[in-house]
């Protein structure tokens, strides 16, 4: 197995951050999106507190447009780990029938960002652990591990606190919160290597399999249910595809692949010339898209 010493170093750093943050928190929560990074983060949290159970709940922001397999997987995790998963949906957004297909950026704002903010306010969470990584996107590459969010959850990237050695500063005013990213320094490759090394269970969508898809500009969208409208001349194909990242199914493209197990995925990823988030439509609507979302409270 490759690069054990690096994985050990990254794992050690992440566990230490989780413990350090938990120790100073009043009402912490772990953001659980059901994706591979969340699965790794959850695995690290389990390790951090072993032999005790994870001492905080998981929070899933449900847009109601996730892949079906993600919902099934969530149920399994809940059962197997006896995990306390809090599910939150922005119901006023749901009533307005805000749709990821017709208006993806409004959908992300209302059903993800707004929902997350509502959930944090409602439960009065103060320390929010998340699985974001710095290698994912340019504005994330600039963010601190312990990221202070102001009142109303806004992020001020121009004025971040210094973060020295591993001496995190967990002091804040009452109306501020912390977003804490224990796997900030992991790359996509590290995440896959770690999943392999630790035998972490992940959603089946990550593995190549014949699935009903439509081809749009060379990438493939899963026709997961009958809410997915086909364009003129579009046909449902059965292709062997896999997903590098998971979000709302109409906004997340898969790639054609034969990699059906972790070793094959790792091998194939090395040759892929597109970045991991290239399949995420929500990143592409504006050039500073992620930064703008983060300033307003997105993860």
């Amino acid at each position, binding site marked *: 197995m490759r690069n054990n010493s*690096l994985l050990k170093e990254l794992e050690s750093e992440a566990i230490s951050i989780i413990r350090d943050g938990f*120790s100073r928190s009043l009402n912490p929560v772990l953001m659980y999106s059901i994706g591979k990074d969340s699965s790794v983060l959850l695995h690290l949290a389990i390790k951090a507190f072993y032999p005790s159970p994870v001492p905080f709940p998981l929070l899933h922001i449900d847009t109601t447009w996730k892949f079906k397999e993600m919902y099934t997987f969530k149920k399994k995790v809940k059962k197997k780990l006896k995990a306390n998963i809090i599910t939150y949906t922005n119901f006023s957004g749901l009533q307005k029938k805000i749709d990821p297909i017709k208006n993806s950026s409004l959908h992300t704002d209302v059903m993800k960002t707004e929902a997350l903010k509502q959930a944090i306010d409602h439960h009065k969470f103060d320390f929010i652990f998340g699985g974001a990584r710095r*290698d994912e996107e340019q504005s994330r*590459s600039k963010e601190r591990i312990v990221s202070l969010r102001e009142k109303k959850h806004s992020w001020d*990237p121009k004025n971040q606190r210094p973060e*020295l050695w591993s001496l995190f*500063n967990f002091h804040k005013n009452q109306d501020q919160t912390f977003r804490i990213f224990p796997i900030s320094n992991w790359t996509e*490759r590290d995440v896959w290597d770690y999943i392999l090394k630790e035998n972490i269970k992940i959603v089946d969508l990550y593995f190549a399999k014949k699935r009903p898809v439509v081809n749009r500009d060379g990438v493939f969208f899963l026709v997961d249910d009958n809410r997915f409208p086909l364009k003129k001349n579009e046909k449902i194909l059965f292709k062997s595809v896999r997903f590098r990242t998971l979000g709302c199914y109409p906004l997340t493209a898969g790639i054609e692949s034969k990699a059906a197990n972790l070793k094959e995925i790792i091998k194939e990823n090395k040759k892929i010339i597109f970045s991991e988030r290239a399949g995420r439509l929500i990143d592409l609507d504006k050039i500073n898209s992620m*930064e*703008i979302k983060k300033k307003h409270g997105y993860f």
Partner: protein
Amino acid sequence: MSSLSQIKIITCGSVDDGKSTLVGRILAETNNIFSDQKDKLKILSKRYGTTKNLLDYALLMDGLQDEREQGITIDVAHKYINYKNKRLVFCDSPGHVQYTKNVVTAASNCSVGIILIDAAKGILKQTARHLAILDFVGIDHVIFAVNKIDSINYNKKKFEALKKEVQKIFKDYSFKSKFIIPISALKNENVIKKSTKLFWYKGKSLLDQILAIPSKDESLNISYITVQHVHRPNNKTRHYMGIARGFSIRNKSTVFVMPSKLKNKIKNIYFDNKKQKLTNTNYPVSIETESELDIARGDIITLKEDSIETGNCFNASVVITSQDNLYAGRQYLMRIHNKETYITVTKIKKKIDFNNDDSSNLKELFVNDIGEIEIDTNDTIIFAPFNKVKELGAFVIIDPENYNIVAAGKINFALRRSGNVFQSKLKINRVNRLNLIKQVSKCIWFTGISGSGKTTIGNALEQKLHKKGKFTYFLDADNLRLGINKDLGFSQSDRVENIRRIAEIAKLMTDAGLIVIVAAISPFENERNFARSLFKKNEFIEIFVNTPLHICKTRDSKGLYKKAAKDNRMNKIGLGIDYQIPKNPDFTVNSETQDLEQLTDEIVKKFFY
């Protein structure tokens, strides 16, 4: 089993010396840019680029909107590269002086520092400052990359002259290794591969030099666990969690808990979802001990009783990371490993001079200053000098008022003063004195802006207490400035010292049994809190004289408001400007709406019955 190891590298240097371009170049040449990212870069280069028709690689680093629009780097970008079986983490940091705090942030976790200099411009002030910062945070290996060597036509003589300059400023520092390498990031000369245009240069290319640096050797001759978290899954069990350092600790080993030095025995060791026989170096563990002793976050578990020192007074170096200066005499919060405590900066000894300023008689350090200070800590600190064990000597200073990080610091050595100054045990104490004169001593502290009526109310209150047969004393800040505080002016640091002295005098007098009334503007929450911290609970009463500014201005008994209106340069703290409204005063009065008689009656009723 091939083992990938990690090297963390900071790139720094003055504005426009090509830091972001260099990292962008390395990303591109090592095939670490995805094609969709390259497409985005093309769009960005067209819109914001400064390199004509070439791709502007700096825009890969400068990921924030403001950075692109202003064409500068504001905060650190983290880039991860796999190259020849190494993980290289580049922390690309800003060159502008106002973002120096972000350079310190980036440097603190790196082991290699690259300082870029523009071959045509040479060494600038920021170059020297960044070198000092790399030294400060404990970076081992420093590479000077003389960039834009193409702009001096790959000229050997010019490079050699610059090299001499660099060696001159290098001389004062003892890094483990020092290199000076000519490159052109823009033209890709001597960055990845050796350049034929630099045929006269005998050393390695920049990237090969980085790879050739030996990975850090962290063998410690001590063994410890800093307690990060005490986990209590139920009321019977306690798990002490932290990273194990040095050689392993075995199950059933006898250990000592610092600073109490109490002996204990390891009962269980857990990590990696298993019960284990011994700890794993540099890996997070969770342990249970035989006896339930008081072990808290910030304590240290160690194998030998005397392997780690403790102390209360320290000589330390700091770099200031906040616009709020660091003041001598002021109280702050400190985090060192997992321990937090209040500290007082007792002395500012010196500062590194980048501007040839006069550095005698220092009372404060300003943002970006690097200096040497002395501190007293409220709690006993377990520590090691930074140059011996980084983790046990590095600290941050936090402003308890707004929670900004005021400074990064490192302990140089403990001062033995605390061991030499003994508190003499006296036979007659406060209680004896209070019994004799039959009163409860107190300190009534009036705070408020100039002209709010502190002295008037204080006077009336003292008269009333005097009539009741109480022993009192009135400390008026203006009067004290005629005597004991004669040497102090009105700068921020002098105001800090002014209040410190008044508070200490008030403390002595209450100890003597008196009811002390203080009237002082005391504009800063920090100093008022410091004053409170000297007294016993309920002994210190903070009264905020909250009179509206326009009333104070019309009163203007000392003529200060008129004077300030005429003189722009006058220090206006206390004249309604920069006065920090008390957050939790014990009592608030308003001399505009309340009658003096009624108001003092209320104070007496509330605090003297």
